[in-house]
């Protein structure tokens, strides 16, 4: 159930430090963050910015060094390993970059498996799983094994699994990274639908420029802190979102293009006409 003020995921002064004093690395530094019911928040940032650490703390998989984390109004900061699995299972739905379905289970069984006992009971559980699969447009793939599903279908099964226990919070890690443009867009729209129609908080960590399309808010994470003054652009080669400041750049037919690294820059320079239309 959502908190009364609408905040599903709350982070207050969250800091995460890896290592001991001499070799300490600050992955997150005094983070303030809220995700509300009915919104899609996209977190972007360069590699090593702390996105995975953010996601694992938000997903009750990792405890912060300091600060407070609440999910649906419940403080999970100091919850031990005994309590955190229940929080993950009941309050959070996970969508992973590489789908992470269980290979020996059918699509329907993958969805049913994660259901808590009260939901999984008998036919009711099966019907709920079928309903979710139907919402995902997978009525005809109920008994298919993951190896027989396309990437887009696998990700839709993963989303159905994330919704199995009707959680308030959906955490998605690069949900479109392994999908082509069409399937990626389908998944993005599904995530937006989940936020808007099912009134969930959807937090997406992504490099994918296209995901901006469904975002209610985009936040930029860099060096362990959120920055609001960041100007971003899309790398025309790999479609990643990059921070303009400090990024390699190339001017072509009067337009400045920015790149995530030298490799993409070189590829662009070899055949700029191939990418300039796409970037536009």
């Amino acid at each position: 159930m959502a908190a009364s003020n609408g905040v599903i995921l709350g982070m207050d002064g969250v800091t995460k430090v890896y290592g001991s004093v001499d070799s300490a690395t600050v992955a997150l530094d005094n983070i303030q963050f809220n995700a509300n019911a009915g919104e899609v928040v996209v977190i972007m940032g360069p590699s090593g910015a702390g996105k995975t650490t953010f996601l694992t703390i938000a997903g009750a998989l990792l405890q912060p060094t300091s600060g407070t984390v609440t999910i649906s109004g419940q403080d999970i900061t100091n919850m031990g390993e005994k309590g955190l699995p229940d929080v993950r299972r009941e309050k959070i739905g996970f969508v992973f970059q590489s789908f992470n379905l269980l290979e020996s289970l059918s699509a329907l069984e993958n969805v049913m498996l994660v259901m808590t006992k009260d939901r999984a009971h008998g036919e009711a559980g099966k019907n709920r799983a079928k309903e979710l699969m139907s919402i995902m447009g997978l009525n005809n793939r109920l008994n298919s094994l993951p190896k027989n599903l396309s990437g887009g279908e696998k990700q839709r099964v993963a989303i159905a699994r994330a919704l199995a226990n009707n959680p308030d919070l959906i955490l998605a890690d690069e949900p479109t990274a392994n999908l082509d443009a069409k399937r990626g867009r389908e998944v993005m729209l599904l995530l937006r639908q989940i936020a808007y129609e099912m009134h969930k908080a959807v937090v997406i960590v992504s490099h994918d420029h296209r995901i901006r399309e469904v975002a209610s808010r985009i936040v930029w994470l860099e060096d362990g802190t959120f920055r609001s003054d960041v100007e971003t652009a899309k790398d025309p080669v790999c479609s990643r979102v990059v921070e303009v400041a400090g990024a390699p750049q190339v001017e072509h037919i009067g337009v400045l293009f920015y790149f995530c690294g030298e490799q993409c820059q070189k590829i662009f320079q070899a055949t700029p006409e191939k990418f300039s239309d796409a970037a536009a």
Partner: protein
Amino acid sequence: MLLVARKNLFAERTRLAISVGGVALSVLLIMLLLSLYRGWDEKVGGFVEDSEVDVWIASEGAKDFLAAASLLPAGGQEGQTAASFLDSQPDIEAWSPLVVRQMEGVKVEIEDDGEEKIGKEMNLQFIGYDQATGLGGPLEIVDGEGDPTGDEVVVDEALRKRYGVGVGDLVKAGGTNWTVTGVSTGGDFVATQTVFVSHERAQAALSMDEKTTFVVVKMKPDGDVPGFVETVESADPRFVAFTREEFAANTRERILSNVIPILLMVLGLAFIVGLAVSGLTIYTATVEKQREYGILKAVGFKNSFLYRVVLEQSLVTGVLGFSVGVGLTIFITLFASDFVPQFVTYVRPVDIAFVAAVTLVMSAIAAYIPVRRLASIDPVAVFKA
């Protein structure tokens, strides 16, 4: 059974077959050894146990049926003294002398030209018994007559099975051609089989005039067996007496005491083989599915659930292996003695229960190391592509 455990187990049929096969082989080996031991135990001690003899009297130094280095007086002054002593015992219902000696014999066939065709050598437990009391004689006649006279013998059915000796055949032993007039049961000592003749004829054939090997005693129903044993031993230190149970146990010990350490060692090896096969297959299955276990942890399953998955896979493998192993054991024991006569087996329900418990222990141990590995899986790893 948990859905994940069942699906994981049956998704990899080749691995399952190897795992079940390994456990089945181990169970088969354990069951065969146990049933072989039980079979020998039954055979070796069975004759003494099933006879009507309550007390066995031997000369000092002899203590079992098979190593019959016993020599007792059965005639003359000493024999008469012994007989008087026994006759005076109020608790005795009957007693008689019994000649027992191991010897080799052969089946003889007289051909048309009068030549003797000699068969394979047989190890015989040559027994001369008093037909008046029947003590120490054939337990049950299954073919022909039961009271041999003169050069007649009753042979155990194991001889018929192994060497084809039947009623009407000739058996040559101790320089005499004996005619088989009956076939009995219960006299198979695995390595030797009983051949019964009359006591007088055995004495003559073995040059044991006025001597016998044992004196066998049947007590009255309310007779004091331990008291009588004590009376015999205190009457003359040259004689020892044993109750039926003691004598059977001593006979078993002579044969099986040398076999038990070997059996135990092979049993241990069989257990290790089963453990290694099931342990390795469960371990590799767990390692292969490590990422999936990480996913389950990430989405909220507790370690206890994952432990159950592995333990159930191991237990199901164990149960399947046990069923196949026991089935094979029963199948083999039905026919094995037809091909190898010494392969005398006896499958007891209690041994099946014991092996079931051993298999459960094997399965639990096989799951232990994979379970430890599960505990160390970091669910955060599933966020890596």
